[in-house]
């Protein structure tokens, strides 16, 4: 017997049912019929994790953005004359001070407005002859029901060139986008899970075919289906966990890189993409979920196949 075989044999004896541990294996210790399955599961877990992380990050970002926007109103005064813009801005401020539910009304200084335009126009390109509208940022109390149409009408009386933007159109679009992304992510994950289940079914059938003789002998000497299935459960649980763990490590590296690059590239233009600690923990459960899914699928497949035997 070669040294390597001896080593394999010894390690198997240590966990055989006559050994110290309570584990019982009737399949060969070096089961090779499905050695690529963990890698396939790893790819599936990786795709699932990337999809989930993308969905969650977009949900977080849009949720934070729409929450912020729903508490902020913006009044824009568009007039070519700077003096008239200032007059109307003061009038707007007076109306807002008398409006219930308004916590703060702040006329945005010109330098801040220029800074906001810099990503589009470049530094130093906002000249005096460019009629930049005056802006008033209004912070309202959370939950206060301000009638924006009525407020807009009141503002128009005192400042005819003022218009109130409650960002509802923008929030609506963001919510729609977020919902669409979530549905797409959900459908993708469902398809990945179904594909994984199908692959585990094929892999289990292949393992059953490879060990048909052993399974038949076990069946003939009176082994219950549950005992035979337990061996395959253990095997596929391990495959699922290995695959899930590899997928998790690869996905976490990718997600970290994407979030880092998004934070760098996005600057002030894009909302911050992030995952909460709870969400990260949830994603960390994927190896356990893949092992459970793999185990359950193998169990069902084996029991179904055994059910066809007398």
């Amino acid at each position, binding site marked *: 017997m070669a040294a390597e075989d001896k080593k394999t044999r010894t390690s198997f004896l240590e966990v055989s*049912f006559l050994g110290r541990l309570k584990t019982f294996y009737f399949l060969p210790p070096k089961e090779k019929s499905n050695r690529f399955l963990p890698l396939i599961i790893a790819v599936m877990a990786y795709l699932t994790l990337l999809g989930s992380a993308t969905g969650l990050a977009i949900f977080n970002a849009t949720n934070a953005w729409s929450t912020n926007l729903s508490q902020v109103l913006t009044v824009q005064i568009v007039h070519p004359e700077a003096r008239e813009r200032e007059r109307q801005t003061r009038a707007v401020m007076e109306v807002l001070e008398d409006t219930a539910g308004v916590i703060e009304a702040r006329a945005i200084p010109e330098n801040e407005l220029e800074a906001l335009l810099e990503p589009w126009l470049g530094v130093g390109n906002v000249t005096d002859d460019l009629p930049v509208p005056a802006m008033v940022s209004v912070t309202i109390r959370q939950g206060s029901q301000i009638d924006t149409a009525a407020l807009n009408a009141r503002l128009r009386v005192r400042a005819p060139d003022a218009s109130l933007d409650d960002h509802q159109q923008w929030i609506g679009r963001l919510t729609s986008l977020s919902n669409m992304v979530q549905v797409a992510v959900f459908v993708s994950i469902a398809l990945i899970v179904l594909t994984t289940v199908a692959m585990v079914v094929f892999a289990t059938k292949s393992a059953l075919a490879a060990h048909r003789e052993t399974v038949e002998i076990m069946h003939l000497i009176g082994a219950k289906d549950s005992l035979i299935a337990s061996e395959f459960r253990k095997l596929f649980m391990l495959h699922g966990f290995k695959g899930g763990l590899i997928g998790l490590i690869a996905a976490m590296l990718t997600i970290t890189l994407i979030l880092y690059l998004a934070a760098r590239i996005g600057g002030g233009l894009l909302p911050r993409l992030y995952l909460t600690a709870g969400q990260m923990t949830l994603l960390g459960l994927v190896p356990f979920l893949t092992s459970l899914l793999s185990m359950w699928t193998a169990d069902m497949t084996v029991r179904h196949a055994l059910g066809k035997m007398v």
Partner: protein
Amino acid sequence: MIRFENVGMRYGGEEEILTDINFELEAGSFHFLTGPSGAGKSSLLKLLSLSHRHSRGRLTCFEKDIGEAQRSGLIKLRRRIGIVFQEFRLLDHLTALENVALPLHIMGVKRKEVQSNAEEILEWVGLGHKTNALPPTLSGGEKQRVAIARAVVTKPQLLLADEPTGNVDPDMAERIMKLFVELNKMGTTLLIATHDPQLVARYHVPILKLHEGRLSYGR
């Protein structure tokens, strides 16, 4: 203990491979099952080992009507039957001891008892020194004795052996037959399928003769 009444068997939609089989095996009896190749010996053994169902007639095994029995019920009945396969069908990655211990483990016997019982049976078949040997390293006769040990380790009420001496030399065949006779004396019902006329001639026990799927009695 075992009763066949007008039993027929077919595979799928094919012609009957066994037709109108009638016989009874009483507890503690010893029978040979003979017949030329293709006569249906293996099929009859499949019915007796409960690995296949009959297609008509009535088959009673340990007072249970097999036609009516649930699948889970058959699993329990199988534990009362020992089978020695013609090709041994040992698990090559398990040692002789582990192979013999397999049925005990399946039955949920305690670990210590599993080991001592399996060792004792291996000793009885003369392989006490081969407990850790893997089947591929054993001779044909040794494999056959491990297979017999595995079949009898649970003290089955019925022992079926398919050509148990077919792959061994005459001396080993004699030794194996002595083991079977000894088991039968201890109360095990025995049915040995063989097409070796010399073997059948040496033992004065009833013969079930199969020819083209039909059974007749001999001796």
